[in-house]
């Protein structure tokens, strides 16, 4: 098991100019590691749909590397998206899955069949160009640079330590940071895309 923050720190030196978005509770840690916030996007708002929005960005900007740090609870809510992505096969799409085997944001209940799902195997069987699975930080650190040179869609499943939240939503500390629309407007300015 690996801490999510260590995953982000391992990825950061190999980011280049990639666009990055995240889903799930631990995704918020990325903002503390990123050095290119105008290339970071917040896309989520509906259950399990960040993966599809990231897929749309990848299709719309095929010359840019699109990186998604997904979570297994979110992916299970939209598992067909794997087939949709494999079908269009965007070469610029890098799909990391941070798998803590639970819904950490709702108190740590296990996702269905939590410990027994081979997500990288799923991605491979639907047609991702390349898949990887990591449980060890050192292996991830030594591999991630080469993975970012691969042709997508690439799927990287990583077992991470859970960060369980038990407080009712109203009592939780707000993570702060930019709103979704702020990240989108900053992003579009960075890429010279006219806001519609």
């Amino acid at each position, binding site marked *: 098991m690996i801490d999510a923050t260590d995953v982000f720190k391992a990825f950061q030196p190999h980011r280049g100019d990639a666009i990055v978005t995240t889903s799930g509770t631990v995704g918020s840690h990325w903002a503390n590691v990123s050095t290119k916030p105008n290339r970071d*996007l917040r*896309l*989520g*708002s*509906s*259950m*399990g*749909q*960040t993966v*599809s*929005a*990231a*897929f*749309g*960005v*990848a*299709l*719309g*900007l095929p010359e840019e590397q699109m990186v998604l740090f997904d979570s297994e609870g979110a992916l299970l809510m*939209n598992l*067909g*998206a794997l*087939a*949709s992505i494999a*079908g*269009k096969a965007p070469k610029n799409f890098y799909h990391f899955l941070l798998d803590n085997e639970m819904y950490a944001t709702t108190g740590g209940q296990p996702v269905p069949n939590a410990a027994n799902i081979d997500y990288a195997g799923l991605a491979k069987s639907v047609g991702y160009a390349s898949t990887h699975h990591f449980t060890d930080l050192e292996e991830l650190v030594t591999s991630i640079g080469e993975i970012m040179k691969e042709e997508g869609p690439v799927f990287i499943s990583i077992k991470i330590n859970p960060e369980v939240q038990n407080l009712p939503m109203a009592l939780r500390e707000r993570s702060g940071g930019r709103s*979704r*629309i702020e990240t*989108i407007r900053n*992003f*579009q300015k960075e*890429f010279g*895309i*006219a806001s*519609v």
Partner: protein
Amino acid sequence: MVQQQAEILRPETLISEFKKNGVTHVVTIPDSETNYLYELMVKSDWLDVVPVSREGEAPSTALGLNVAGQTPVCLIQNTGMMEAGDSIRGMALDAGFPLLMVVGYRGWTRRGATPDTVARYTEPFLHALGIEYFLVETDNDSARISEAFELARSTKRPVVVLIGDEYHGFNR
């Protein structure tokens, strides 16, 4: 017979409206009524067809395309539109982008009464979400499609075009 043929919405008309309004991508799940339309779209080299596995993926994929500066349309059926409720809420209504959704109106009849419950719930569903919509039955209604595009652009909201007869004229 000639008169009857004139009173349908031809798939070519819909594609012409897409081109006129600068559509770049169609995010879609083909349904039983739209195969010829699908074939025409795939043959259109200016249009990128993005097949998805479930309708909830359509508004979110479209949001990503919008963020990237593209002009997507969602092409789904009313059954799938209801499945996509949370995605329409979070990825379209709350997102602040224009989005045209072309929705096959399964079960629709001019008589009003229909045994198909999906038709009974289609317009109440749109009313509940506060989504404006236009009914398009034949080529004569095609101007409503551009009108819907314009409303989506001016309000930065999703707007629905309900295809009342799904391109064949059988439902009347």
